[in-house]
């Protein structure tokens, strides 16, 4: 296989494999909360807002020579800002959630386009940001990704009881005297970081599926949150490595291949679970 030869030979493929490992860990853990809390609609807004941060980063790098301001740092700033905006603006139904989400979604894209337009020199191709450029992950990107994954892991280990109760029923947590605003805000920030991590792998447009499908697939059979997280992570790894290898051999776009593999697997498992339930039921009736 060309992939294995190239993996041994080239560092960029080793970085790609490591980046996927980090993103999958975050995907399994945070995706489980997103699915249990039915908040996948958040992801679209946060992920598209990244384009604003990426545009800003490219502008500052090229127009002002701030080379340290990488696109992943720009993306992180945009993700955190949009998570903060969504959390505060929708608090206690201050503003309608769908209004806030659509505004952030499109504003992010608009800001991105504007910054790219005023960036001197060549007009940049946005495709790699929109649909992923996992093969272009730099060593610095990898370091930032590692830090983000560690932050996510530590926060979840510390606050897992509160997150679980929040996802089960917000009022239950509130009536125990815990600030649901603070817990929900923290979880939104972790979702934002996870979106940045996964956007490195599949790009902004395809993040939504990759954050939701692995945990949703695992939720078909895993009975406890920790198991959904573990299996969600494993599925995410499988989708990403599978998609990477297939696309590498066949010269297909990586992000798209990963997403197609993920959705196909989800459908197969959903059908298998439905068939099994029906068989058990007809068995019980006999």
């Amino acid at each position, binding site marked *: 296989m060309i992939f294995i030869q190239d993996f041994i030979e080239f560092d960029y493929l080793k970085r790609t494999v490591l980046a996927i490992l980090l993103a999958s860990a975050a995907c399994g853990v945070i995706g489980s909360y997103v699915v249990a809390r039915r908040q996948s609609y958040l992801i679209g807004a946060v992920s598209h807002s990244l384009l604003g941060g990426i545009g800003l980063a490219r502008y500052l790098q090229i127009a002002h020579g701030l080379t340290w301001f990488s696109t992943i740092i720009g993306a992180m700033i945009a993700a955190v800002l949009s998570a903060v905006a969504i959390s505060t603006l929708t608090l206690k139904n201050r503003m309608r959630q769908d209004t806030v989400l659509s505004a952030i979604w499109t504003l992010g894209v608009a800001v991105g386009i504007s910054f790219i337009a005023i960036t001197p020199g060549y007009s940049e191709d946005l495709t790699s940001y929109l649909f992923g450029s996992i093969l272009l992950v730099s060593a610095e990107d990898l370091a930032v990704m590692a830090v983000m994954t560690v932050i996510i892991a530590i926060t979840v280990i510390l606050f*897992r009881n*509160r997150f679980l*109760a929040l*996802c*089960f029923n917000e*009022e239950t947590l509130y009536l125990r005297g815990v600030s649901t605003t603070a817990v929900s805000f923290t979880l939104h920030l972790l979702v934002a970081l996870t979106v940045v991590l996964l956007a490195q792998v599949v790009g902004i447009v395809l993040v939504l599926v990759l954050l939701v499908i692995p945990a949703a697939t695992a939720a078909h059979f895993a009975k406890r949150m920790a198991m959904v997280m573990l299996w969600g992570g494993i599925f995410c790894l499988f989708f990403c490595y599978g998609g990477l290898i297939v696309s590498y051999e066949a010269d297909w776009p990586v992000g798209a291949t990963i997403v197609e593999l993920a959705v196909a697997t989800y459908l197969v498992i959903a059908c298998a679970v439905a068939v099994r339930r029906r068989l058990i039921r007809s068995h019980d009736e006999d």
Partner: protein
Amino acid sequence: MDTSSIISISHLCFSYDAREILHEINLEITEGMFAAMVGPNGGGKTTLLKLILGLLTPKHGTIKVFGHEPQAARKRIGYVPQAILYDPNFPASALDIVLMGRVERHLFGGYRKNDRDIAMQRLHDVGMEDFARNSFAELSGGQRQRVLIAQALASEPQLLLLDEPAANLDQANAKTLFDLLGELNHHVTILLVSHNLSLVSNVVSHIICVNQTVDMHRIQDVPSVADDPTGWVRLIHQQCPVINGKKPDEQIHPHHH
């Protein structure tokens, strides 16, 4: 018996917009009581529970729970809602759900052995200890209800509030539940909402008729309790606005808008 005040409500009025739900409520719940609220739908039973929990704020009048504002008393209250919204596939065991009754006790990290011991004990109390490791989602409606009661008990409350705890239970399970609550009442003050007065009349100490106004009776002062053919509760008691059939509008004139 110690008769220190648990819930003290005076001159309380509450309305959603212009519609007055509760008018000029005065109520004293003292330690050790087991009170059941009865009354028609929309009469304000659940609203009163939410006011006691601090989920709603009175428009007029005051509520004190353990002598404090309801929000400050929250950790001493165990609450079992009538229905809660949760994902039917939610990935948690019955024990996980019960432990949520102790979620506020540790800012960081998981539950301690002590928490798990208490949660298991409460599952035992509701007869669900054999289901501790089972998925909460796969339990029957009645079993889930008992797990949620165990959750409320795991918080070691001094006051237990239950909204229609028997709504999803058949007659036999409902009787078991009320026997259990009667047992728990040795340690905990209980206030619940119930439609089925014949079931609760064996265990409760007080009946509270709620229909825009409230009227509390000692159970021994209620001459008789009978189910009417529609399954609704009928008390033979003339002074109570719920029972004598008059609409509240004919008796009182809301003055707060």
